């Protein structure tokens, strides 16, 4: 039987294999040493405190540190303990790392991976620990991937580390303990390739990260009423598989973008506008976005969930477009 790992264990295996394969791989972050059961478990023991470096609470400095290490032959991984912490280091991410390669005229590559742990809301994490800030990084031009399975978590972690550009990997909070099949050998899942997670021909639902599962559940529900939903997972949000997106829309003619980031100028807006420009003549109905509400994530359970993109709203949107 194929081996199963949790999402977090898959990330851990990818890190171990990457460290073992390439001595230029280093990692910086807070509380990444001497931890059990986390994505960094065992790394410092295996590879030493010079490569697995516990950092002070200085996100801007250690993000810049990684940029410098990358310019000097290193292949650093920067861990952000909480997704909202990328804002603390935003100058180093957006003004520096994202801009340097072009500003340098291509003198050097900048192979840095940003590992953003526990992204997203759910379970009372409240306003400052519930963000899913990938549209910010995409708008800044930083390559962005969101694995939705343990297998992709491993493959994209390895791919991100190998990529000669900054890549942000978002590990959704809701997936970390989920299990799935994960091959043992090292492998890279390519960037820029979307995946049809469930085939259908009447309507496409674009969903990533922890929403993939929810989209599939909704697809199964409406299938009972003869509605055929295709669930398309971009996997890599930047680069985005625009051809794959166009293909599924050409097939179904209808689109709902189901996304767990803020609505205004979010990922759903990008997908929708791509389709409105490139696939207009395939469209049989308006493009719908089901996203977070544009509010700070409220703490209390009923309003927290009301603020997030849920199955009911997706189902209603799917049914409405086919009514």
């Amino acid at each position, binding site marked *: 039987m194929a081996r199963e790992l949790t999402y977090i264990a898959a990330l851990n295996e990818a890190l171990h294999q990457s460290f073992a394969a390439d001595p230029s791989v280093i990692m910086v972050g807070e509380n990444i040493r001497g931890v059990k059961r986390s994505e960094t478990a065992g790394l410092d023991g295996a590879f030493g405190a010079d490569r697995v470096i516990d950092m002070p*609470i200085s996100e801007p400095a250690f993000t810049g540190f990684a940029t410098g290490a990358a310019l000097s032959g290193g292949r650093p991984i920067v861990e952000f303990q909480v997704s*909202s912490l990328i804002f603390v280091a935003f100058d180093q991410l957006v003004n520096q790392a994202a801009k340097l390669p072009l500003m340098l005229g291509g003198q050097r590559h900048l192979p840095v991976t940003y590992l953003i742990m526990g992204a997203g809301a759910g379970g*009372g994490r*409240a306003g400052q620990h519930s963000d899913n800030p990938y549209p910010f990084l995409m708008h800044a031009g930083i390559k962005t991937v969101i694995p939705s399975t343990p297998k992709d978590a491993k493959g994209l972690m390895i791919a991100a580390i190998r990529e000669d550009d900054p890549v942000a990997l978002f590990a959704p909070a809701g997936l970390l303990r989920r299990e799935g099949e994960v091959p043992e050998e090292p492998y890279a899942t390519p960037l820029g390739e979307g995946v049809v997670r469930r085939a259908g021909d009447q309507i496409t639902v674009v969903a990533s990260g922890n929403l993939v599962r929810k989209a599939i559940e909704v697809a199964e529900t409406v299938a009972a009423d003869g509605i055929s939903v295709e669930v398309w997972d971009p996997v890599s949000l930047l680069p985005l598989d625009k051809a794959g997106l166009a293909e599924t829309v050409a097939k179904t003619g209808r689109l709902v973008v189901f996304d767990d980031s803020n609505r205004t100028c979010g990922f759903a807006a990008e997908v929708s506008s791509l389709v409105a420009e490139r696939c207009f003549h395939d469209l049989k109905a308006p493009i719908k976005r089901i996203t977070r*509400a544009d509010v700070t994530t*409220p*703490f209390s359970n009923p309003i927290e969930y009301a*603020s997030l993109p849920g199955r009911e709203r997706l189902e209603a949107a799917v049914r409405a477009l086919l009514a």
Partner: protein
Amino acid sequence: MPPSTTPDLPDAETQIGWYQRMRLLRRFEQNAVELVDEGDIIGIVHEYVGEEAIAVGACAALTEHDVITSTHRGHGHILAKGGDPARMYAELLGRETGYNKGRGGSMHIADLDLGIFGANGIVGAGAPMGLGAAHMFKLRGEPHVAVPFFGDGAMNQGVLLESFNLAVIMELPVIFVCENNGYAITTPIGEMTRGELFERAAAFGLAAEAVDGMDVRAVYRAAAAAVARARAGGGPSFLECRAYRYSLHNVAKGVPREDDRPAAEQADWRGRDAIERLAGELTEEGLWPDGARAEIDDEVDAEIEGAIGFARNSRRPDPDSVLDHMYAVTYPGLPAAGWE
């Protein structure tokens, strides 16, 4: 530069009040952990147990007009500044009667009317807000001060270091209170900085000193001196209070609880417990009658019980109110719902 005068301790009644508050802080946390385990509190709680003398000692030098900014480990500060445990539990339980109407939760509890600007989920980030408050006091000629609380780990966050400088050059009535509990989650402060924290602050021009954070009287004396100086226009200062958190960094339901800190270290600090210390001093100095302690403890337990009851009996926000409070002024389509 140590404060120029050492204030006297207040009368026995006031000090007994400190005992009661410290006791309240501790029992509040212990019950909060139970509420987490029982599933009443959804999310994470950072206990303040062990550090009670800092918040209570420092806030004893303040009035309700003064402002504090707090941290992820904020319950203690809020209670010490006069926060109502009932409205705090209601917030932790996500109820409409909570301080933030259930919108904030543990890491964001605030009571603006009591000068409590709120806990904060981003280490160090609350401090500059205290400066803005202090400036408005100064601008209006009011004698109030602002007190940002933060941990040892925050001493490496850029915005806090910037705030030291800003308070100094603007000569603001600010007292920075650093709660040095020795760790930032797993990392010992000794590995994350070199030298004494208060000396780093002094180099920015702050009047800075370190005090025993397990001694509420010492914290009070130092804070009162700094506050008096600030009220008199003498500028900002920095107080490093050395203490220990007895508990784990935080607790959440279902997350295993293992403490990797040395057992001897833990025992040592617990042996210097601030609540026991003050209780001992009050007894030794004959400042409270026999039986007073048990009475107070019962009172605290009753208050906690009443507060939890209040919270449990309050209603949760209506899902339809999800867009409320994002803006003071809304517009058609703002804030946008996620589904229309």
